[in-house]
């Protein structure tokens, strides 16, 4: 299934319950049409990772995910040689060469060339046979290049990996290939649809961004967030959803260390529903504050009169009915 226009992408995402702006859909469409990686940047919890997951589901493509962390290296991100097996092959070859008659004989059933014989060429063949494809363990990046269908590759939270890793990705992003020194170049037959996300804890290198389409994902506006709640937390009534969204939207304007993301809004709504809250009041907000705010200083800030003030504001706007 392939989307041919922005509208189709939008419909595709919506069918999977992902509410995104038309702008985001345009970028996704371009990523598909131009076969370029899409670099998504934005606050945590605005649906960057979710977008890749949803798109994979919508296209029926396998999702390959690489979660980045500090110290991530090639052996965990791209490929690794199966060293224990290589060791075993060496041992087997040793044994075979000891068993084989000294003049070389007809050779055993074992196809591995034996070391120990002194010809340099044979040694070379032997060394190369230690690095054959079956002994290569594929990690996510290499997996993404060897799929039988076009996969979705998600490189999540790239800013967590250290900078040298940015440079390592360049070849993959630009050429859809990985060079393995002992083996050669692995090129993708079905180039992956690549998404890279970043929370901006550090600036990702320009050379990498240049190879990507760039998209900033911000907090959704009131209408969008309401649509998201309708899709993701349908058990909450229309009225409660409206109140939650209005409350969260106002909260984001406060000077908080970490403004709640969409993920938090959904969690909070579910929490309120679980507590049978029919509408927002200071008590229910206080009881569930931990779902929404993850820093003690933020919680302390809202604990006082602030919640009451926000609720009064919503009452004044008739979003919450007065008593």
């Amino acid at each position: 299934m392939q989307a041919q226009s922005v509208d189709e992408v939008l419909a595709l995402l919506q069918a999977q319950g992902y509410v995104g702006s038309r702008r985001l859909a345009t970028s996704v469409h371009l990523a598909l049409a131009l076969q370029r990686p899409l670099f998504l940047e934005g606050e945590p919890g605005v649906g960057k990772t979710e977008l890749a997951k949803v798109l994979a589901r919508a296209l029926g493509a396998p999702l390959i995910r690489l979660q980045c962390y500090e110290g991530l290296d090639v052996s965990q991100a791209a490929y690794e040689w199966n060293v224990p097996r290589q060791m075993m092959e060496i041992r087997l070859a040793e044994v075979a060469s000891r068993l084989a008659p000294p003049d070389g004989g007809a050779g055993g059933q074992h196809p591995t060339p034996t070391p120990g014989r002194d010809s340099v060429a044979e040694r070379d063949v032997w060394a190369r046979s230690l690095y054959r494809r079956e002994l290569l363990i594929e990690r996510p990046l290499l997996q993404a290049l060897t799929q039988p269908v076009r996969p979705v590759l998600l490189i999540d939270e790239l800013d967590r990996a250290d900078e040298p890793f940015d440079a390592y990705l360049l070849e993959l992003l630009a050429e859809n290939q990985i060079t393995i020194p002992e083996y050669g170049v692995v090129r993708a037959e079905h180039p992956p649809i690549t998404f890279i996300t970043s929370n901006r804890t550090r600036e990702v290198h320009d050379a990498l961004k240049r190879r990507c389409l760039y998209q900033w994902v911000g907090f959704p506006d009131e209408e969008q967030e309401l649509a998201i709640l309708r899709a993701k937390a349908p058990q909450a009534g229309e009225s409660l959803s409206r109140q939650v969204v209005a409350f969260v939207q106002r909260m984001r304007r406060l000077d908080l260390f970490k403004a709640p993301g969409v993920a938090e809004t959904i969690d909070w709504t579910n929490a309120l529903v679980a507590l049978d809250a029919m509408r927002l009041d200071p008590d229910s907000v206080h009881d569930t504050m931990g779902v929404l705010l993850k820093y003690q200083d933020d919680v302390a800030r809202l604990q006082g009169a602030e919640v009451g003030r926000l609720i009064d504001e919503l009452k004044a706007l008739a979003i919450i009915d007065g008593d």
Partner: protein
Amino acid sequence: MGYFAFNLAHFTRILRRAGLPVGPDRTLAAVQAIEAVGLDRRDDVHAALSAVMLRSNDQQPLFDAAFEVFWRDPKLAERMMHMMLPKIQGRGEKTQPKRNNRMAEALAAQRPQSSKPPNSAQSDHQQDFDLDFAISHSDRERLHAADFESMTAREFAWAQRIAAQLPPPVQRIRSRRLERARSGRLNLAATLRHTARQPDTMLPVYSRPRRVLPPIVVLLDVSGSMDRYARLMLHYLHGLRQRHRLVQVFTFGTRLTHITRALRDRDPDRALDEAAAMVEDWKGGTRIAQCLAQFNREWARRVLGARAAVLLITDGLDREGAGELAQSAAHLSRMTAQLVWLNPLLRFDGFEPRAAGVKALLPHVDHLLPMHNLSSLQDLERALISAPRHRFNPSSRS
């Protein structure tokens, strides 16, 4: 499409002239992007071009403004750019990085609904400052540009030596990357590669985690009481920044200023001149508490990864708000792996933490070290190794 491609190329040039780093390859990408989304809807064209041409959300307002004008009247856009941009200056003269911001503001002002870039902190807080701080604190704050020239030749030579030699007083951290070592963990893959080259011997190869400098964030007090030290420290920090890329430097007195960009220049004189131009509260009063709180709020989550070290260089003499200071310091210490305080007042043998600000800070720092002369600076690293950590440091950091 031909005429359109021509227009796109023109648009790219205008963006470039406006200071956006849009390479020629973008024009081609833009043509492809427009082919993919079509020309039916203006918002699609806008979104497509942004996706292709931008590399950071900060650039959006400038792009929006240019887009708005250009798609109404390309000629007008060009004239406006000419008017708004200062003439290209001769070789050697530095173009100020602030210029882009100013133009972004000038252009963005045409669209009242255009959103504010979240990270143009510099210009933003300058405005805030002009409105609030300057009036309420004008009595205490003596705003003047830092005069680095008055540094004596001897001071300068000192500083250069320090900058060239000294390691930063932070503890190295264990990287998750490995390096070859005489002993440690057996590295099977490397052993095998070695064996492949020399099949007759099988020498085990070992590796162990590399020990590297963590990212360092420096908060430098430039208030009146710190004047002599701050100037010296700036030289030191410039040297540090040149050697270790992961250094971020902020100055604070009555306001917080991010000066890392200035210190990127290799030449110390040019770098410090530029820094001096950015710092406007040089030799003014001190509002440590507010500045730390501002740092926590606006920068901490961005520049402090899980393992960053914070170097706080101040005498701790805050004129107000010890309670607030304790709170900000506590927050800061929770956000960072090591909080090291360099204090010039430690030179006095009988130094006791009696000032309210010092008392508020002390419980939250891991190390308190002196920094009043060259020898104390040279001793910093040794002092750090022998000094016990002050506080219990919960390891749950994110």
